[in-house]
């Protein structure tokens, strides 16, 4: 059909066209009159139909933020574009166009029904974002590879698929293949798949499917493992002691330390190193466990704090609600009394009373709020003190443990130096009975060189330890300050919001009263 339109002039999707379409498809009759009177904002439109309009390029749709259903069928569109903003779209019809590749749909995560019937598509692709896809229509296209079907396996909700009129539908195995690879499919090419066909298909393609499934499962398991590990690490990170539950720090100390590695070949050093490593790792694990424990403690502290704050706010809200409910009851009765009253002076008096009530309510609510602010401030300060103390204690303990590491390192350094010097002496004397690697032997030229080498190794180690310690301390400190800041900010926001709410309510009440006055005076 679109071939017929080729002769016609392509049209541009401009504002007028959209307005016209919206106006035509909007509410009718009385509501339509109102709509015309007011005009309809594009962002309020839920459904839009733009078919048979010779549109070449999708454009100007960014305002339709809340659009649920879009029909662009029977145009001459060549490229899917300009739909990025329509994230609420559920139903998209692009059939009878000239589209060649599937693209530009990555933001439409809510899409459930997609029709690309009668286009020039040759490959099913770029649909990964459409996790909710239920209906996919791809008939009358140029898909010629069966492997496109395997791609569709990732859509768990897909129930309806049409692929007739494609080169692949000519294949004799077409139906069986699809049924086997997409077992959850219910309708294929507008027909219900019966159970018998499903069984047959399953039997036919069992081996390949099983293999596929196996691979998918493996992938799944790997993903899960990865995720679990990531989570574990994340947990450790929140405790600021990641990678301390093993020899990671120790290994990193020696990773960049060429001299140290060389020196480990000295006689007696490897045993020394072994012992050193053991001790070091024990301390690291201590830090790690202590860190987790402290993290737990901080979490409990934070939980109790937020719970208590929440309770306090809830209670305060309840009080406020009660006050408002009381007020409203009274207010309603007095309003109706005013309406029934006919004497003007009386009315005025009553209105005055009412406004006095309103301002009293305002005072009460504000007082409640002020009270809450005071209470919370006190609590927050207390929490802040405690959490800062905790963090301080944690840092202190970690530092002392790190100092132990450093002591170990110093000790090790001394030992190493001793061994090195004695080895040097031996070499000088020439009574070294063991073979040393060449690069190690190169260090034993004179005393300065060997001392420097050992010293450099020592420096690197110390630097690593210091870095780790610094990292921990800075991170926990920044966490702490951020937490406290956030609590303060949240409280301020809460307060602002409540005050605004109260003011709004009181303003409304007051304006209602004023309106009443007006109307009475007019009457």
């Amino acid at each position: 059909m679109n071939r017929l339109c080729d002769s016609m002039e392509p049209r541009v999707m401009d504002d007028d066209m959209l307005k016209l379409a919206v106006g035509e498809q909007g509410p009718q009759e009385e509501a339509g009159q109102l709509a015309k009177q007011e005009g309809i904002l594009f962002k309020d439109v839920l459904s839009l139909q733009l078919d048979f309009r010779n549109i070449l390029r999708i454009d100007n749709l960014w305002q339709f933020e809340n659009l649920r259903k879009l029909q662009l069928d029977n145009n001459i569109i060549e490229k899917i574009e300009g739909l990025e903003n329509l994230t609420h779209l559920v139903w998209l019809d692009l059939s009878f166009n000239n589209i060649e590749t599937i693209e530009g749909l990555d933001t439409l995560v809510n899409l459930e029904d997609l029709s690309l019937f009668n286009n020039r598509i040759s490959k099913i692709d770029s649909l990964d974002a459409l996790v909710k896809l239920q209906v996919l229509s791809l008939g009358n296209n140029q898909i010629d590879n069966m492997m496109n079907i395997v791609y569709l396996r990732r859509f768990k909700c897909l129930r309806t698929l049409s692929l007739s009129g494609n080169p692949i539908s000519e294949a004799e195995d077409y139906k069986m293949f699809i049924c086997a690879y997409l077992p959850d499919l219910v309708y294929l090419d507008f027909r219900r798949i019966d159970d018998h066909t499903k069984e047959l298909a399953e039997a036919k393609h069992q081996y390949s499917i099983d293999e596929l499934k196996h691979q998918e499962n493996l992938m799944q398991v790997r993903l899960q493992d990865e995720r679990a590990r990531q989570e574990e690490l994340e947990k450790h990170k929140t405790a600021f002691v990641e990678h301390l539950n093993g020899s990671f720090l120790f290994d990193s100390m020696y990773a960049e330390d060429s001299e140290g590695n060389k020196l480990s070949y000295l006689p007696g050093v490897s045993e020394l190193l072994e012992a050193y490593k053991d001790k070091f790792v024990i301390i690291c694990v201590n830090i790690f466990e202590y860190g987790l424990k402290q993290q737990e403690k901080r979490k409990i502290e934070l939980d109790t704090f937020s719970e208590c704050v929440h309770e306090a706010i809830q209670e305060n809200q309840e009080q406020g609600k009660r006050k408002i409910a009381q007020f409203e009851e009274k207010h309603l009765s007095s309003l109706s009394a005013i309406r029934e009253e006919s004497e003007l002076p009386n009315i005025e008096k009553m209105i005055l009373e009412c406004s006095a009530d309103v301002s009293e309510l305002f005072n009460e609510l504000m007082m409640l709020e002020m009270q809450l602010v005071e209470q919370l401030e006190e609590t927050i300060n207390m929490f802040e003190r405690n959490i800062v103390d905790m963090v301080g204690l944690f840092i202190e303990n970690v530092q002392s443990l790190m100092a132990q590491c450093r002591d170990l390192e110093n000790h090790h350094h001394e030992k190493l130096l001793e061994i090195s010097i004695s080895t040097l002496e031996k070499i000088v004397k020439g009574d070294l009975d063991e073979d040393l690697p060449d690069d190690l032997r190169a260090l034993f030229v004179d005393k300065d060189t060997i001392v420097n080498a050992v010293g450099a190794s020592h420096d690197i180690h110390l630097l690593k330890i210091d870095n780790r310690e610094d990292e921990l301390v800075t991170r926990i400190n920044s966490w702490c300050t951020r937490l406290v800041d956030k609590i303060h900010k949240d409280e301020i926001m809460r307060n602002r919001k409540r005050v605004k709410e109260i003011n709004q309510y009181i303003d409304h009440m007051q304006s209602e009263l004023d309106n009443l006055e007006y109307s009475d005076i007019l009457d």
Partner: protein
Amino acid sequence: MEVLREKVEEEEEAEREEAAERAEWARTEKMMRPVEVRKEETTLTQEMLRDLEKKLSEIQIPISAELPAFTKDTIDISKLPVSYKTNTPKEEHLLQVADNFSRQYSHLCPDRVPLFLHPLNECEVPKFVSTTLRPTLMPYPELYNWDSCAQFVSDFLTMVPLPDPLKPPSHLYSSTTVLNYQKGNCFDFSTLLCSMLIGSGYDAYCVNGYGSLDLCHMDLTREVCPLTVKPKETVQKEEKVLPKKYTVRPPRDLCSRFEQEQEVKKQQEIRAQEKKQLREEEERLMEAEKAKPDALHGLRVHSWVLVLSGKREVPENFFIDAFTGHSYSTQDERFLGIESLWNHKNYWINMQDCWNCCKDLIFDLGDPVRWEYMLLGTDKSQLSLTEEDDSGINDEDDVENLGKEDEDKSFDMPHSWVEQIEISPEAFETRCPNGKKVIQYKRAKLEKWAPYLNSNGLVSRLTTYKDLECTNILEIKEWYQNREDMLELKHINKTTDLKIDYFKPGHPHALRVHSYKSMQPEMDRVIEFYETARVDGLIKREETASTMTEYYQGRPDFLSYRHANFRPRVKKLALSSAESNPRPIVKITEQFFRNPEKPAEEDVAERVFLLAEERIQLRYHCRDDHITASKREFLRRTEVDSKGNRIIMTPDMCISFEVEPMEHTKKLLYQYEAMMHLKREEKLSRHQVWESELEVLEILKLREEEEAAHTLTISIYDTKRNEKSKEYREAMERVMHEEHLRQVETQLDYLAPFLAQLPPGEKLTRWQAVRLKDECLSDFKQRLINKANLIQARFEKETQELQKKQQWYQENQVTLTPEDEDLYLSYCSQAMFRIRILEQRLNRHKELAPLKYLALEEKLYKDPRLGELQKIFA
């Protein structure tokens, strides 16, 4: 040595007895004292003495002679088994042992009453009390626990007082007889109950002792009815929440503490005053209710059941009074003393002092100092080994053994002489004698009936009175069973006239509770429903003269409450009944639960349709962190503007307050659509209210019908009452019977009448056999012909009659009334039917007759008695 020891013991015992007696005397003295005091104070004149004498003579020992005594001559002993009438040698031996024991006992304790060991049974045969117990486990699961057992015994038997209230009875009948006659004294009651309890595994004992007057006469008028006692409200201990670390400090209290204290003090004073008044009132009431002192206090013989802890997870020893079926603690002051107790294995005498009722008794039956046992070696498990060391006990055992005069150590109680206790299912269901029982409590009367006895299913009725004399009814509670309308309990409050019906699940309208004052519609009433059984989730509907309130739960539209106000009905000129003229509705208020799927500012919490003012008010739910909720009010006004166009929607038709103002809600279009929606909803709600009214009418109508019909349901397993199954069963039986008859017929001996002609016992000769056969066959042929003739004759008669009738009809056709014509027609059709049947029978007979003849011939050939025939042909 043992004798000596026993003597010493007995002496001690006697001393203790004396002490007890002294105490007893002191008590009676105390009771008498007021009189004596007065006596001492005033000088005794003759008149006074005479007066006293008169008074004393007026005092009568209440012997209830007017009650029908359960005497021997009413019992038919002829059908009782042998064990009732005679004693086995073992029983004789036991009786001798008992006599010996009794002699020793009376010798050693001369001041104690003789033991209740072997009363006579219904056949005037002495039987030892332990053998009268027949432990039986009843086949009814309801009778497995002690409380239901006791209740059953108390319901099932009618109480007969002891012939002499101061002595144990001379007769103790078997439980089977007692069950047969449904009457008994306290000993019969406790024997039966004890048998049942031991049978179901309790450690139970029959007790012979002394009880209070009320206890002995089964007088419950001073007891509060257990059904009226409200279950004690379990005071939920408020968990003291520990103040959490960061709990905010409460705002400063600015009230004066001094003033508060003063206030509290004042309140306390007032309360104390009230309490005092209340207490005084109570005391006064108690005084009024207190029993008159009983002259025979402490001497009245009673029998009850003791259940010891240990078996069947009984945590504590307790008494059961078999008359009432109530349980009492062993400390209860109504039980004044224990003489002896026994179970099916042994007999124990109480050697402890009962001066302080039974409060100080220790029920350690293994302790020979406290409990003297009669038979050795049967129940030693009771002995608590903690008190004395083992060797001591062994010594004692040996010693006791010597003292028992060569008593066989392994002598145990003979088997019970009583037949198996059986309660038929009918008797079990009927429970009370004649299925009816009335118990008088303090300020209450309880009546019980067997199920299905009353046609309206009433099973018990509790009437509560205001006063002790039971004249002024306070309220009535009636329990029903097996009603088709599932009515369970009817509660009528006489002071407020409020009636409350309670229903079990299963009423067609899912009724649960219906409280009302009158059955007229549009009156005060509350109907509660089983909301899970209703599609609309209605829980409760309250009605007053001008309002109707409904409460809902679990609806998909989250409606929780609907309240409608009505205006009095406008009198219509047109003729219309109440149903077609519903009351005009003024206002409908609906409230909704929070719908978690909608944001709070779009989720309506309450909507009010003011139908009279054409106004709709909406109140939305409050957001979690807000204290104000959005509101909207629509005024439905249809006006015409200056140009004559209808105004569809103007901004002043919708007044709204929004917590978070949003753009799209300000639009007229949005408001217009909302209003249209609300208009539709209003119509629906109005419709709903009317539907509800109609439903109430329907319910009331149904209730009235049900009350009038009060049909009872009968379980399909109830073979006796279920008419349908009975009919079916009877039909089945009939079929079986017919089948049986047919079988008998087939076995009918054709030859018998002919054989009878010949001398019996002789073998038939061939000639005789042939003759016999021919006779038989010719006889049968004749019978067949006769039968055919008979049918033919009947057929002809019917045909003739019909023809006659037809002729008559032809002649009189003109003059016939329609009724006659009908009669004629029906006659014709019936006659035709008969003729047709006869014709069929005749044809069938013609067909079958030769076959039957051949069959008989065949049969005769095969008959062994006519074997001669076969021989020839063989």
